[in-house]
């Protein structure tokens, strides 16, 4: 699904939940203050899927809901509205969160030596862990060999730099 030239709100929704969320987000932009049933009929999605997307977006403060009484049936329904002014803030927050985690990971990678047995399903061990296990994998009993994490550290530094620059703009 092409979303390069889309409203940021739709792009963010797609980032969170994929194609279903994109359809819900587009429907929300086309019909402001729509109910879940209206969105479901506009998108052709199941009401369950629409509600899941709406609650998720609401949980992330990307949409707001107003409880109103349905004039026909008499019960309460929620009318949803996109909070498009929140999307840029949401993106910046995500950037900051990812950046913070990358910095923590880089610090950890720089401070430790890592060992692995070569079996893809087995965990990577730090030097301390490997020594405790006499340099034998506790899962598959293969010898633990030192891992070169230079590529990962370089990639982490590059990504941190990229995100830092974007946040400074």
């Amino acid at each position, binding site marked *: 699904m092409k979303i390069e030239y889309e409203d*940021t709100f739709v792009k963010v929704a797609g980032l969170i939940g994929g194609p279903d969320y994109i359809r819900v987000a587009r429907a929300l932009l086309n019909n402001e203050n729509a109910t879940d049933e209206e969105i479901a009929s506009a998108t052709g999605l199941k009401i369950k899927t629409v509600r899941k997307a709406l609650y998720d977006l609401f949980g992330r403060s990307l949409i707001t809901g107003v409880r109103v009484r349905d004039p026909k049936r008499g019960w309460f329904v929620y009318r949803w509205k996109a909070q498009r002014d929140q999307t840029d803030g949401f993106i910046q927050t995500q950037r900051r969160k990812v950046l913070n985690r990358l910095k*923590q990971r880089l610090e950890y990678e720089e401070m430790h030596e890592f060992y692995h047995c070569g079996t893809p399903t087995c965990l990577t061990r730090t030097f301390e862990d490997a020594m405790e296990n006499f340099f034998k994998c506790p899962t598959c009993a293969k010898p633990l060999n030192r891992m070169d994490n230079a590529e*990962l550290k370089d*990639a982490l530094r590059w990504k941190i730099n990229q995100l830092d620059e974007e946040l400074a703009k």
Partner: protein
Amino acid sequence: MTKAKAKPPKAAKKQPRQPRQKKESEGSQPVERTEEELVDLTSRVYKLVVERGRDGVLQSEIWKELGLTSRDGSRLAIRLERRGLIGRVKVLEDGRWTYKLTPLRFPTDMTSIEKAPCIVCQYEPKCSIEGEVSPYVCPWIGPWVVQEAMAAGSRPDEAEAVPAR
């Protein structure tokens, strides 16, 4: 006499408006395009408007460039205007009324975090240094970063940004 003189210019002004009113009424007819097609076209129109920048672009140029009918062009522009993505100002161009479309919002670039695992990670709320799930042992963050760096390295425009080591 003055009243009689004043009438012809009014009639002349109304003439170009009449065909547009007809087009708008045609717009209420059922559209044959699918929603997917409409979405794709809307995004293409938005792309064209954004590419022209603050100077804006004439609505008539857009539908000619995309090979659309004037009705479709105007419907798509109205759709974007309603979403607050573009501004639509009526202008007289070569004796014909058309609309100038200018971008009100530019698309936000989020390619750097588009594939970040944290955004869709189910353990994200629990992820912390002291927590059960932490960035130290996260199995997704490492491969993602390496992949991104490799992809950027393969692109000549960003190759310089990738560290040499």
